[in-house]
């Protein structure tokens, strides 16, 4: 029983991390049809900013958390301004490849200015303690992660429903042209989307740093790859889809790890990706994608 609870908490926390990142990808995609490959480097930037501010400024973890989230938001908005504004409205491939180039540039900047070896930043390690709840021993980090993700999703929901910018974002996902005709500035809406995606990446970054304790140029790559997969399972660009896909992926990953014999542990990744491929064959546009005819205005 406690094994079951432990593993389901594992699945939830994995899923929460993927959902946070996937939401960031989906919100940008829904508005400007950009597959943001550089999202992982936003997370890595957060990691490095923690390493820098943590050694130079303060050791107070609460201030540092704010710094990490702000750094991620800032870099996401700057990337939009510098790199992605030029390809707004271009076709999918152009945007995807631009994001992909930005990601390579940032990774190599980290390599050039930092170091190929991990840079230690252990300020958030204290989040990860083993708690004993009755018979069950769980990691506190996993509880925080799940709770924060749920809170972030609720906050995002309120933001999207109650504020002008939030409503503009939702409307822009349906018809950007119309939003502009209603008098909202396109640049502001898109920058808002990137800021939110940076905010979510910052939250994810805090948890990733708490687990790793060090920043590395490629640290964002694997989580974002999984988040992409989550987005695709759920239906690319759909926000509920991103959350659903994230949690499904977390569950699948933990299930595969449990079910697969120990000797085949290295194949867990392969099995998860194969499952994803099968889902895509069953529903080419993802689970929660709206029924849409080819040629409809997007």
């Amino acid at each position, binding site marked *: 029983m406690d094994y079951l609870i432990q593993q389901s908490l594992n699945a939830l926390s994995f899923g929460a991390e993927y959902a946070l990142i996937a939401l960031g990808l989906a919100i940008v995609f829904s508005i400007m049809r950009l597959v943001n490959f550089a999202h992982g480097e936003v997370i890595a930037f957060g990691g490095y900013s923690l390493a820098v501010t943590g050694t130079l400024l303060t050791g107070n973890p609460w201030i540092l958390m704010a710094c990490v989230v702000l750094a991620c938001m800032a870099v996401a908005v700057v990337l939009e301004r510098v790199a992605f504004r030029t390809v707004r409205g271009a076709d999918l491939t152009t945007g995807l490849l631009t994001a992909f180039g930005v990601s*390579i540039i940032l990774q190599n900047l980290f390599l050039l200015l930092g170091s190929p070896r991990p840079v230690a930043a252990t300020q958030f390690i204290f989040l990860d303690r083993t708690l004993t709840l009755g018979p069950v021993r769980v990691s506190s980090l996993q509880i925080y992660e799940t709770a924060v993700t749920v809170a972030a999703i609720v906050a995002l929901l309120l933001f999207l429903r109650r504020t002008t910018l939030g409503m503009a974002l939702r409307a822009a996902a349906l018809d950007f042209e119309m939003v502009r005709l209603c008098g909202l500035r396109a640049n502001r809406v898109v920058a808002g989307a990137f800021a939110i995606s940076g905010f979510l990446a910052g939250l994810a970054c805090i948890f990733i740093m708490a687990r790793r304790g060090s920043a590395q140029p490629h640290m964002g790559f694997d989580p974002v790859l999984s988040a992409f997969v989550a987005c695709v399972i759920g239906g690319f660009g759909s926000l509920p889809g991103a959350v659903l896909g994230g949690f499904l992926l977390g569950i699948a990953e933990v299930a595969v790890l449990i079910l697969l014999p120990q000797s085949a542990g290295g194949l867990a990744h392969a099995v998860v990706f194969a499952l*994803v491929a099968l889902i895509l064959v069953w529903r080419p546009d993802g689970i929660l994608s709206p029924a849409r005819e080819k040629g409809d205005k997007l």
Partner: protein
Amino acid sequence: MSRPRLNSAQRRGLLGSALLGLVVIAVVGAYYLWGEAWQARILYATFVNLLVVVGLQVFMGNANITSFAHAAFMGIAAYTAAICVTPAAMKAVSLPDAPWGLNAFELSPLASAALAVLITGVLGLLTGLFMARLNGVGMTIFSIAILVIVHSIFLHRTDIFKGNQALFGIPKILDLPQLTLMVVAAIFLARLFRESRTGLMLRAAADDEVGARAMGVDVFRVRLVAWVASTLFFAAAGIAYAFHLGTISARPFYFNFVFLTVAMLILGGLRSVSGAVFGTLLISIGLEAVRWLETGPVLAGVKLPELLGLSGLALGGVIVAVMAFLPNGLMGNREIDDLVLRRRNGG
């Protein structure tokens, strides 16, 4: 229709491929005249990349869908060819634990290459059946899934693939002259595919899928054909790689290689075979220069610092700059013959 003949676009295609072939042969000739021995390796690697990029153009360029799976297919072909062609005595040392008697047989180079092409092609067909059903982003993610799955199998089955260690003892079968022939042949094939009926339908579907369907294009079928055709190019590249280097490992068949080849293709321009060729040559030359800078050379008496990561930075910079300023690459929709015959085309 008494007898199928090449239409004018296809005749232009032959001319264009011949011109590109001359460019390739000129590069090789320059190497034999003035090159130094250590450059042979670079040139060989460039030509292997050229095979991959031309193959990538066949699918990615004509269908305008980004795929990252090519390194996986190249790896499959390279390993198949290597395992088949390595003498059994050598495999007893290099692959002592291989299952299914993989280390107890050997094939001739030709048979090994044929088997590698066959296996890669069959896998291409199987994945293609799923792949061709998907739309833009789904296809890209699916191709990443293929890449990740194949890579983790390479890493996991160390008894067959040696993982990140080297599989050694592969006889050296191909050298620059044979590879040059392969590259020229690949250029002709890719260009003829582009101008063929299927290629034209594929390009039409890329420009306007709904319109193409309305005109009776079977988008699934043409995408499938292009996907399988491009995996055959990757198979050729993998075989050329394994048959020259003598050792292979799983590491080169992953994201870094994918980034490099995709950058080459988009610098030249996805949509034309000439773009693929020029992009590959330009990036290969540029990277050699940047790599030299990266090691911290002494320039005009000043010792420059070692700059690890500069080559990657340059590569990313090229991609972003091309996408921002020349979204269709250097060549855009043009082929080399369009540049040479511009006046006749305009008149």
